[in-house]
């Protein structure tokens, strides 16, 4: 069930919210757990078993790991890591890793045919962070298996993040408050995310899809740049829209999930970009991989190696393909470049130049992220560099219709941090005009909700990009 499907918007979400609000303190956790498992089973069928098994295993291991300072705690953590890596390898990387070993590939074929459970990378990383945090003594182990299952399966962020750490919501599982203000705020956030995903990302997707589907002989330079612009905005609007919806639903249920996107395209360096893009993933890699590897404390060479290793794995996290590895390597290399003096060079540029640098290198990286093979990437880069097809029917002008133009402009507007500024300005206003403007904002968001629902009813909306990770 997608967040923008009519069934979710008009039945599942209102019913779950209603039941959760009407239930008592314990009851609402039961409601949420059952709703979350139902939500996952609805879309993934028997794969819900993987989620339940993962919750069970990690709950037990958490209890073991909580005996800190003992060998059994270390063994429990090692077992947990092995379990999680095994899960990822089995469902996500087996075909890629063992495709050239026919016997093994044949043996794993039934699993491959099932495909990876949606969101496996997200809930596996959540579970892993829980074990590590318990091992480090950051949080106590959760003794109640149902509460732990609720943490792992919480439906708003279950299938595409943000990767919520147990430490961030441990107290909220037991005690959380819901009031009209939070519900209204959550609704606004949800509707904003829905509009970003359905109306903007959905309008840009066909252009990006077309540009990236063309062969070298058909792709001209103009369309290559338009396609890249559309994809760069699409992936941001799609993923940050999902995060907005997850945060919004969480707020309506009394949870506070951490922000996952902090207007990353407004950054002025790649280092800053990774503090703003998919924050829950980048901070996960920082805390559980980069820092344990030594971070930047062991000299320049080791720091460079650590950065590269982290970003190669970050690429691999997104999927089993060389293109993702190259995408991760690209970002790792850029970070090293900034660390060894590039940042000082960039600082000499005017602010606009720094922004342009960031947008350019990040967008070029999206080519690697979007293509299916390295050949395709080379063709696409050639087209971007002006060596594309000279005569092609697929010009940028052909695709730049009013809907795409509006979505591009609105997407750019949504990529800069004007909303916090507007909120700040709104707060300064006197009461009557503030309330009038809030009503206007709410009316606008209702319109966005209705239009998005209509798009879902018309069958024109597309699935989330990050579902496949």
């Amino acid at each position: 069930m997608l967040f923008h499907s009519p069934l979710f918007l008009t039945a599942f979400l209102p019913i779950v919210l209603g039941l959760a609000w009407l239930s008592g303190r314990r009851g609402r956790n039961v409601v949420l757990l059952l709703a979350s498992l139902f939500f996952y089973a609805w879309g993934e069928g028997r794969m819900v078993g993987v989620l339940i098994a993962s919750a069970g295993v990690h709950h037990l291991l958490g209890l073991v790991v909580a005996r800190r300072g003992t060998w059994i705690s270390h063994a429990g953590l090692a077992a947990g890591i092995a379990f999680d890596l095994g899960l990822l390898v089995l469902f996500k990387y087996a075909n890629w890793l063992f495709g050239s070993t026919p016997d093994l590939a044949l043996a794993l074929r039934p699993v491959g045919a099932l495909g990876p459970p949606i969101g496996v990378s997200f809930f596996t990383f959540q579970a892993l962070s829980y074990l590590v945090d318990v091992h480090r003594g950051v949080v106590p182990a959760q003794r109640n298996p149902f509460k732990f299952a609720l943490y792992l399966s919480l439906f708003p962020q279950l299938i595409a993040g943000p990767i919520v750490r147990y430490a961030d919501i441990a107290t909220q599982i037991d005690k959380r408050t819901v009031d009209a203000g939070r519900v209204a705020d959550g609704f606004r956030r949800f509707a904003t995310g829905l509009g970003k995903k359905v109306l903007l990302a959905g309008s840009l997707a066909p252009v990006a899809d077309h540009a990236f589907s063309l062969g070298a002989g058909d792709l001209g330079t103009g369309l290559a740049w338009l396609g890249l612009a559309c994809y760069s905005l699409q992936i941001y609007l799609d993923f940050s829209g999902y995060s907005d919806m997850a945060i919004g639903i969480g707020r309506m249920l009394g949870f506070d999930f951490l922000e996952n996107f902090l207007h990353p395209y407004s950054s002025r360096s790649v280092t800053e970009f990774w503090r703003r893009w998919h924050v829950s993933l980048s901070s996960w890699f920082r805390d559980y991989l980069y820092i344990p590897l030594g971070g930047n404390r062991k000299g320049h060479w080791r720091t460079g190696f650590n950065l590269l290793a982290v970003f190669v794995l970050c690429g691999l996290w997104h999927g089993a393909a060389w293109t993702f590895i190259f995408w991760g390597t690209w970002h790792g290399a850029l970070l090293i470049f900034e660390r060894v003096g590039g940042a000082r060079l960039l600082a000499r540029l005017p602010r606009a130049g720094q922004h342009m640098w960031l947008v350019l290198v990040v967008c070029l990286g999206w080519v690697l992220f979007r293509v299916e093979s390295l050949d395709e990437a080379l063709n696409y880069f050639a087209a971007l560099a002006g060596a594309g097809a000279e005569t092609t029917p697929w010009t940028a002008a052909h695709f730049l219709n009013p809907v795409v133009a509006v979505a591009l402009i609105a997407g750019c507007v949504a990529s800069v941090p004007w909303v916090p500024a507007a909120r700040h300005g709104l707060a300064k206003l006197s009461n009557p005009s503030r309330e009038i403007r809030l009503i206007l904002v709410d009316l606008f968001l209702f319109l966005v909700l209705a239009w998005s629902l209509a798009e879902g009813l018309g069958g024109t909306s597309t699935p989330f990009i990050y579902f496949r990770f």
Partner: protein
Amino acid sequence: MTTDEKTQTVEIRERERRALASYPSLEQVEAAPRAIEKAYADHLGLRTLLLRAAARLRWSALKMIGGTEMVRGRGEWLFLHYGKHLDMWRGAEPLSPQELASWVELLQTRRQLAIQVGAKYVVALLPSKPSVYPEWAPPRYRKLGPSRRKQVLEALLAAGVPTLDLLPKMQAAKSDDQPEQMDFLFHTQGPHWSGRGERLAAEVLASHIGLDLSPRTWELRPGPRAAEDTWAPRLYLDGALPPLRQEWWPKAELPPGQKYAGAHSDSRRFPGPGPRIFFQHDSFGRGVRDILGADCELTAIWSHHFDFGRMQEAQPEWVVDWWVEWVLAGNTKAVRLNSPQSCTLEFEMGTGVGWYLGPGGTGTLQLVDGPPAKTLGESLMLEAKTGGVRLIIGNLPQLATDGVCRLVLTAPAGGAIEVMLTPGNGDPVRRVNTQRFPLTPGHSRVDIPLPKDAHGGASIGLLLDGGATPWTLHGAQLRAKAIDQGSPGTSGGER
């Protein structure tokens, strides 16, 4: 199956004379949510209101319409696109030399068949709306080169296949258009001809085959076709676009003809006085058929699937293939398994079901050598040599029961064949069952169960892979019951 279950099976079969109901499979249970979501979306109370509001907002604020089937042209003109038609017309998607040769070969074959029954043959690849009215086409769709239609017409001319090109006459007739009354040769909001366009087309064809049409009085009056043809309601834009109220129709009613029993849903016979004509057409032939039907003995088959048996039965003097240029959007790489024996008559599904066999993966496909008549008249149609091939059962109505697809194969060395069922056009999807069927040396019959929910869109695809086993496909049969034989709709739906 346990003994108890066996007893139960026998009990129910003998007492109640029906099969034991089976539990749904896990796959069926897992497929249920998607079906429920679709049904829920269709039943949602505010659906019409929301879709209408969104369509109007898009139309008025962004000058666009939703979906990819139709594209808004200049003014309030709508053009059928289906993701490809306008690109075919503007020369952005020309036929490759192989595809062109394949079309020419197909039409040459049809001409040969016509000659065999002593008939003259002509093919008319009809110009679609943007061909006749490029000035109203969407400005983004710039004309770049010759359309597929022009490509094929030129190739047919070179191959000596008789053609009829309506475009010059239609372009000349545009001078009679009355824009203030929305009187054009095509409906502005639909893809088809107006009454005047149909009249012109019928007159051009009649003149070509030497048929004298009875004099008729034509008047401007409310006609049924515009309401049928307009896409405004389908796009939830009814009310936003001006309805076409009047068009040119004959004053006297045209003879309706007799529905052709067992044939495509709106195929007809007209026992007229004149020459015998076998008219194979798409939705652009309906009005023309009605006009011609009063003045000749007409067998009008509404289908792209050539029916040799019916043609023989009709003993025509003329065989006319009458298709709008959209037919060239079809998968010309696929070769049609469309003999009357193997498709139209034997299939319990009824007519209109199309079989397409195309390369999938590394397999190679070759037409079996031999005279076309022999090839088309026998079930042995195509030879697929090792590797994977894709068999698509197209234009398929919803199945009422589970069915069986029987393949007749020869594999000299035996071995096995893997069959993967795929909904839609044969693209592999996640979680589909791949079944393995052993092949005995020599002839084999493989019965592939087709669950009724395997149907995706309007077709089922079978990916056949013999691996290293050499095998040859000789024929295929489908056995199932359909819920609805379906309606041909527009030619777009016939692709």
